[in-house]
């Protein structure tokens, strides 16, 4: 086991408020690593820092041993990092399939001249890309919407579309920001199996999620943060028994609820 992603002493301030403070953790290659914490704990900010959308105030992030702190998102994509968003980032002016094909951008030639002249090599690659992306849409379970306009798709399908787009990049590491938010029980169940299939392909998954049942089911490792700081870390079993987590995060009466929601 080696760490694929490691975050060291990371901090982010917004006008004097510490959204993330001195946070360190590692994500092992091949793991499903979940990050949980109450609303406003800084989970999405952490994602934005790791994926280059925000510049950290302090600290470093490394991917596969290379320092990637503050590197532009498109460079991180080329290095094998992909993500989804809690508040969907879908191109509503494009079809569903095109959104997924956008995800394969780093694997396609995009020279202006080749595009203008429609060179055969480019066409062939693009046709192959189209087929791969159709398969990906089936894989994540939104294959029925291939030729729909993205703007005509229901919320649950859009969430899966984002996962398909991220997978299209063939990432080594995939960051999912609350993929189950807004999904019903059946959809969440389907999502669980998708995440497990992704992990089965050897892709490292970092998951931010509120649905504890889902988290406990799929995770190899958990990180609990609160107010931008690390509260606890460990396997699902360890976290479930962690007194501080139960007290601070799960709150009063959590034990009973947890016992109900998380079959041991």
């Amino acid at each position, binding site marked *: 086991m080696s760490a694929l992603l490691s975050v060291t002493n990371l901090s982010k301030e917004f006008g004097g408020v510490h959204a993330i403070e001195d946070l360190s953790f590692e994500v092992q290659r091949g793991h499903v690593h979940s990050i949980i914490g109450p609303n406003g704990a800084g989970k999405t900010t952490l994602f934005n820092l790791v994926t280059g*959308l925000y510049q950290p105030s302090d600290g470093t992030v490394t991917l596969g041993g290379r320092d990637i702190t503050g590197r*532009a998102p498109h460079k991180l994509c080329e290095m094998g990092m992909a993500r989804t968003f809690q508040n969907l980032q879908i191109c509503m002016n494009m079809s569903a399939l095109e959104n997924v094909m956008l995800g394969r951008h780093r694997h396609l030639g995009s020279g202006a001249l080749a595009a203008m002249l429609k060179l055969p090599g480019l066409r062939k690659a693009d046709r192959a890309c189209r087929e791969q992306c159709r398969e990906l849409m089936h894989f994540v379970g939104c294959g029925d919407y291939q030729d729909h306009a993205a703007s005509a798709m229901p919320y649950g399908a859009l969430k899966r579309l984002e996962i398909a787009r991220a997978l299209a*990049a063939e990432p080594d590491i995939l960051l999912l920001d609350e993929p189950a938010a807004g999904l019903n029980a059946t959809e969440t169940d389907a999502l669980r199996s998708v995440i497990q299939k992704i992990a089965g392909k050897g892709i490292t998954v970092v998951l931010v999620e509120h649905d504890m049942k889902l988290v406990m089911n799929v995770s190899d490792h958990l990180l609990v943060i609160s107010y931008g700081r690390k509260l606890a870390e460990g396997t699902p079993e360890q976290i479930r028994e962690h007194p501080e987590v139960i007290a601070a995060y799960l709150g009063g009466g959590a034990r009973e609820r947890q016992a109900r929601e998380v079959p041991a």
Partner: protein
Amino acid sequence: MKEARAMKKNILISPYGGLLLLALMLALMPLAVSNDFHYDLLTKICLTATVAVGLNLLVGYAGQVSLGHAAFYGAGAYASAILTSQYNLSPMVALLSAAAGVGVMAWLVGRPILHLKGHYLSMATLGLGVIAAIVLNNEEQLTGGPDGVGLPPLSLFGHELSVFGEYQFAGLTFTGVELWYLLAAAVLVIAVLLALNIIDSPLGRALRALHGSEIAAQVAGVDTAKYKLRVFVISAVYASVAGSLYGHYSGFITPTVASFEHSIELITIVVLGGMASTFGVIIGAAILVLIPQFLTDFQELEMVVFGAILMAVMIFLPRGLLPSVLQRLQRGAQ
């Protein structure tokens, strides 16, 4: 069966089907028109539409506003004028050099301004356009100032193409005006073909993603700054080529080709015809060239009527003429 019907429908509404239709219409146009005045309007429509097709890549597809695009059109026209009359370059060489020069210019000015968003990008492009027009007005030694400057007729492969000439091909006689129309139509068809190719490519997807969600584009690996710059340069080169051709066609240009009003006219064409609709903006160009002709009887009221039409179309068909009409047809068909 159902699939076959879907396929057929796809070809009919596919952009390349539209291109075929456009080429056919342009080729048949000479049957419908008879006099030089009509050819003149058609030529102007084709050249204006060429600029609009390029500008649409930037504004309609990539979602980046330019309120100063006439500057590139004017730069192309003036570069052609100066290179041919003061440096004795042949018109085609001048046209290509102008296009290359304008491309470099767009690249240089685009780098600092394209990271601006929304109204600030509008402001910056507008500012560049106004400055370009003022420079053309004031550098009289080079540009002839407000009085303008003349250009020699275009020459292709050693043959001069003048609007006043008469030409023999395979036993047929063409007037210069007719040949100019055919040339402008051919340029438009090529411009549309190249634009459609760009849109239907990974590059085009990346450009549309800039409009749809810049963040999605970034995390999908699109270097957004680079792509904005690219499409800015491409659209500037479109404008430059059309500007050079217009200069040779009319034989005389003034700084108004680069004016703020002309920039506004260009962006209006794109928005009126339909953003992100290549054929829509061609209709937009036709309308903007033709409106003044239809309004000659009410010359005094031309501005009032034009302003009213502009507002009405944008209020009632905010997506532009062609996309709105197509949408209604589709809804009607269901």
